[in-house]
C-alpha cells in the first residue's frame, strides 16, 4: 500500500482537527480571561493580580489590620476580577450553546436565544423589581431579582408549548411567536420605564444591553451548575437533534418526533438563557453568530458543534469584556458584542442570499 489515505483516515484526521480546534479555542479563552485580570483597573495590574492569586493558593490571606493595602488588593482581585472573568466565560458558553441548539431546532440561521422573547421577559421581571419593588418571591437582594427574571422568562416557553399542543407549529412560527412575545414584554417594560426616575432609568438601560458587572462567587456557582447541566443535556440529545435537523419527514421515519424534541430543547434553552440573562442582562449577538462561526470550524454535527459553540462563546464574551474595559467609560459588554457581532451578522445575512439555508 502506498501513502494513499482511505476515507476512514481522512475522517479520523478531520475529527482530530476538530477536537484540536475546540481545545485551541478553550486555551485562548482561558488565556484572555487571565489577561483580563489586569485590565481596566487603576489599582490592580496583571502582576499584582497574579501575585494575589498565587498567595491565596498558598494559603496566605492578608490581614486588614496589619496591611490595609494588601487586604484591598486581595479583595479586589478575589471578589471582583476573578469571578467576573469566570462569569464571562460561563455566560458566553451558555449563550453559545443555546444559540447553536436553537438554530438547529428552528432551522433558521437568524434565530438566537434573544429572539424567543426570553430576554425581554426577563428584563421585564427585573424592571418590575427596580421600579415597583415587586418580587414574585420576596427574597431580598440579588436572588429575588433573578427569580423574577427566571419566572417571567418561562412565559414565552409556556406559550410556545401551548400553541404547539393546539396546532401544528412550524419552526418559523416558533420564532415569530418568540418575537411577538418579545414585543409584548418590551411594551410592558416601556410602560414601566416611563414612570421611572432618571437614575433608575439608566440602570434599566444598561441592563437591557448587558453587562458583566456585579458577578460574584455565588453567581459563578449557579452559572457553572447551569452550564454543566446544559452541556450534559444537549450532548445526550445531540443525535436526536441531528436527525431532526435533516427534515420533518425524515425524522419521523427515523423514529424521532421532531416537534417533541424541538419543544424540549426550547424549554431547556429558555431555562438556561434566563439564568444567564438574570445575572448579566441581555447580551445579544453571541447566540446569533457563534453557531455560524463554529460551523466553519467543526461542521454541523451537534456532538462537535455544541462544545465548540461553548468555547467560542466563552472566547467572544471574555474578549468583548476586555475590549469594553480597555475602552473604559463604563461601556457595557453588550455594546461591544453588538459592535463586533453586527459586521459578522451582516456578512452572514448577505451570504444567505446565495446559500441554501432556510426551508
Amino acid at each position: 500500500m502506498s501513502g494513499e489515505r482511505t476515507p476512514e483516515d481522512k475522517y479520523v484526521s478531520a475529527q482530530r482537527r476538530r477536537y484540536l480546534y475546540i481545545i485551541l479555542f478553550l486555551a485562548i479563552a482561558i488565556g484572555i480571561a487571565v489577561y483580563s485580570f489586569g485590565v481596566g483597573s487603576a489599582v490592580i495590574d496583571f502582576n499584582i493580580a497574579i501575585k494575589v492569586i498565587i498567595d491565596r493558593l498558598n494559603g496566605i490571606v492578608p490581614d486588614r489590620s496589619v496591611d490595609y493595602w494588601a487586604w484591598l488588593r486581595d479583595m479586589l482581585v478575589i471578589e471582583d476580577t476573578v469571578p467576573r472573568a469566570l462569569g464571562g466565560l460561563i455566560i458566553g458558553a451558555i449563550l453559545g450553546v443555546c444559540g447553536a441548539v436553537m438554530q438547529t431546532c428552528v432551522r433558521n440561521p437568524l434565530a438566537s436565544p434573544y429572539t424567543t422573547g426570553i430576554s425581554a421577559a426577563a428584563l421585564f421581571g427585573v424592571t418590575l423589581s427596580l421600579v415597583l419593588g415587586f418580587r414574585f418571591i420576596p427574597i431580598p437582594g440579588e436572588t429575588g431579582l433573578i427569580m423574577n427574571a427566571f419566572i417571567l422568562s418561562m412565559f414565552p416557553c409556556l406559550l410556545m408549548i401551548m400553541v404547539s399542543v393546539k396546532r401544528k407549529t412550524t419552526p418559523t412560527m416558533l420564532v415569530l411567536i418568540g418575537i411577538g412575545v418579545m414585543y409584548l414584554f418590551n411594551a410592558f417594560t416601556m410602560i414601566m420605564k416611563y414612570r421611572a426616575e432618571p437614575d433608575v432609568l439608566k440602570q434599566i438601560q444598561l441592563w437591557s444591553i448587558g453587562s458583566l458587572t456585579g458577578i460574584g462567587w455565588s453567581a459563578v456557582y449557579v452559572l457553572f451548575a447551569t452550564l454543566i447541566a446544559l452541556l450534559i443535556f444537549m450532548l445526550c440529545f445531540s443525535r436526536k437533534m441531528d436527525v431532526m435537523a435533516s427534515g420533518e419527514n425524515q425524522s419521523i421515519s427515523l423514529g424521532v418526533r421532531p416537534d417533541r424534541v424541538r419543544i424540549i430543547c426550547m424549554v431547556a434553552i429558555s431555562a438556561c438563557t434566563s439564568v444567564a440573562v438574570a445575572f448579566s442582562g441581555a447580551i445579544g449577538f453571541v447566540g446569533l453568530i457563534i453557531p455560524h462561526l463554529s460551523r466553519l470550524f467543526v461542521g454541523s454535527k451537534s456532538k462537535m458543534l455544541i462544545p465548540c459553540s461553548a468555547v467560542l462563546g466563552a472566547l467572544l464574551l471574555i474578549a468583548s469584556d476586555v475590549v469594553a474595559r480597555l475602552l473604559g467609560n463604563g461601556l457595557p459588554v453588550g455594546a461591544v458584542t453588538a459592535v463586533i457581532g453586527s459586521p459578522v451578522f451582516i456578512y452572514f445575512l448577505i451570504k444567505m442570499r446565495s446559500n441554501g439555508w432556510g426551508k
Partner: protein
Amino acid sequence: MTPEGLNSEGDSIPDCEDILVEEYLSSARIKLLLIALLFIIAAIIAIYSFTIYGDMELSYVFELISNHISGNTYPEYSPEWFDDIIIWESALPRVIFCIIAAIGLAVAGASMQTAMNNPLADPYTVGISSGACLGLAVALSVGFSVNHGDLLGINIFAFIFSLFPLALILILAPKTHSSPSTLILAGVALSYLFNAANTIIMVTVDAETLETIYKWQVGTVSDIRWDNIPLTLGFVALGSALVTILSKKLNLLSLGDASATSLGVDPDNLRMICLVAIAFIVGAIVGSAGIIGFIGLVTPHIVRTFVGSNNKYVIPASAGLGIIMIITADILCKMFTVYDDMPVGAMLALIGAPIFLYLVIRRKSNVW
C-alpha cells in the same frame, strides 16, 4: 323562439360582461363607502379628543376655535385665554401630528408589506425606525437641541441613519420571499444593534439628553408643538405621494419578481424607490415623536379583510383606521395617567403586540 337578449318572459338578460362590471363597480362603491366611514369615525374621535386634552365641553371647544380663527382674543391670564392656549398651542398641533403620523405610518406599512411580500413588514419590525432613532441620538449628542429649534438638523440625521437598515433590507430582499421570518429576524437583530449603538452614545451624554432619547425610543406625542408640523407634513406628504403614485406598480410585485419583470416593472428599482419614500416618512415622524410602531403593521391586515388586497383601497383605509388607532391610544394614555402623559408608543405596543401574536398564531402554517 325568444329573440336574442330577452328571456322567456320578455325581460332583457344582462350579459356576462355587464354583470362583472356592475359587480365590480358596486363592490368598489362599498369599499369607498367603508373608507369614507373610517375617516368619518376618525374625525369624530379626533374632535372628541379635544375635550379630553383640555378637559372641557365640546361646545366650549368650538367656541374657542371659532373665536381664535375670527381673531377675537381674550384678556391675558383670563381662564378663557388659558383654555385657548391649551387648545391651540398644545392640543391642536398634537392631533394634527397624530393624523399625519397615522397616515404616514399606514402608508409605509401597507406599501412595505406589498413591496417585500411579507405580511409582517412595517418600518418598526424591519428596523428602520430604530435606525432613525439612532440618528436622533447622534444628533443630540453632537449638540443639536430640541429646545433651541434644531428640528431640521435632527430630522435629517434621522433620515440618514434610517438608510442603513434600509440598504440591508434591500440586499436581503430576494431571500425573504421564501422565508418571511428571515426579514423579521433581521429586523430584530438590527434593532438590537441600533439599541446597542444608542447605549454607547448614551454613555457619553448627560442625564437630560438621556431622558429625551428615552422618550423617543418609546414614542410620544405629548411634546408636539406647531414647529414640528411643517417639517413632518412636508416629508410625509412627499413620501406618501410617491408611494401612492407607485401603488399600481406595487400591486404587480405581489405576483413575484419574475412575473413583475415580465409585466414591465423593475422589482429591485421599484423596491428601492418605495423604501426610500418610506424612509422619508419614518425619518420625519421619528424625528418629532420617536418610534411609533404597530400602526403600519396592524392596520393593513385588518382593513384587508374588508377591502381586499388592492393597494388603491388598502392604503387609504389603513390611513383612516390608523388615525382612529393612534388617537384612541393617546386618549387612553391620558386617561390612565396622573402626572405625565404615558407615551403613546407604549400604549400602541400594548395593543399591537397581542395583535401581532394573534396574527402569527392564527395564520395557516403553510404560509410560514
